[in-house]
């Protein structure tokens, strides 16, 4: 189900601006969009209520906080039914930043940030592979993140 139809041009314009800079004063957004500051507030609150906006935050550059190794890992399970138990355990490992239930050869697909290869190895063999239900894993180390961005809002 999409709520896109409940959003008008002004909403999308506001989203486009605030998804790029969350701390922009609403006064400036108002000027850009051509409505009052109070209206911007109201619209943002409405989009929060509709859960179009799910939060806000500063982006951390993982490399600068010593997380230099970015890895994708495909996980094979012993049985498909073990999925939710395994996800619950994965959630407890803070270095796992993303977790998906995917089609294709893997049952679960995750993204992991580790400080170095040694740390990655510790997470893999010491934590992930010890979870009951995990049969095997396949690791793809990202040597370079060529780009990362959000979905196009205005289309």
């Amino acid at each position, binding site marked *: 189900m999409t709520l*896109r139809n409940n959003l008008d041009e002004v909403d999308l314009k506001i989203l486009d601006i605030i998804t790029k800079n969350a701390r922009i004063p609403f006064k400036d957004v108002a000027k850009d969009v051509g409505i009052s500051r109070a209206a911007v507030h109201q619209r943002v609150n409405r989009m929060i209520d509709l859960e179009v906006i799910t939060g806000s935050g500063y982006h951390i550059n993982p490399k600068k906080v010593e997380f230099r190794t970015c890895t994708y890992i495909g996980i094979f399970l012993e049985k498909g039914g073990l999925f939710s138990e395994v996800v619950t355990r994965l959630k407890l490992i803070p270095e796992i930043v993303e977790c998906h239930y995917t089609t294709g050869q893997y049952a679960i697909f995750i993204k992991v940030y580790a400080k170095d290869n040694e740390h990655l190895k510790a997470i893999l063999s010491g934590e992930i592979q010890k979870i009951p239900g995990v049969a095997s894993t396949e690791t793809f180390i990202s040597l370079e993140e060529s780009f990362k961005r959000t979905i196009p809002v205005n289309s």
Partner: protein
Amino acid sequence: MNTKDYLEQAADIDELDEKILKLITRNARIPFLEVARECGVSGAAIHQRVQRLLNIGVVSGSEFVVSPQKLGYNTCAYMGIYLDKAKYHTQVVEALRNIPEVVECHYVTGQYAIFIKIQTKTNKHLKKLIDEELQEVEGIARTETFISLEMDFKRQVPIK
């Protein structure tokens, strides 16, 4: 590509920085005075610290997080790309950059040369994107697609 990438050093950050990071990565619009109160320092100090974190690149900006589904982007897929020849890498990445639905792109070890994340409105939209845009990119030999049926969680790296 930044030639100094491989030299990127971890930044010098102390406990106060970490405390600030924890608060502002969860809520970008939190008043700095509130951050100041929680950390037991002045509002001006928080301003200074955040500015420094921005300057040294520990934080690269801020954003409102949107729900792709609510914006009509219902299909999330990962795709491994095989190249005809490894040397096509740069030109393929440039071509991928021009496709807005490709939201992430990595140069990876393992069987694939490039690994990307795609957000599309529907499966049909995904199929169209693969057919008409991705397979048209010169240098791409073939692709393997994993559709994410459910994103269980997504979060930032842990701050000590």
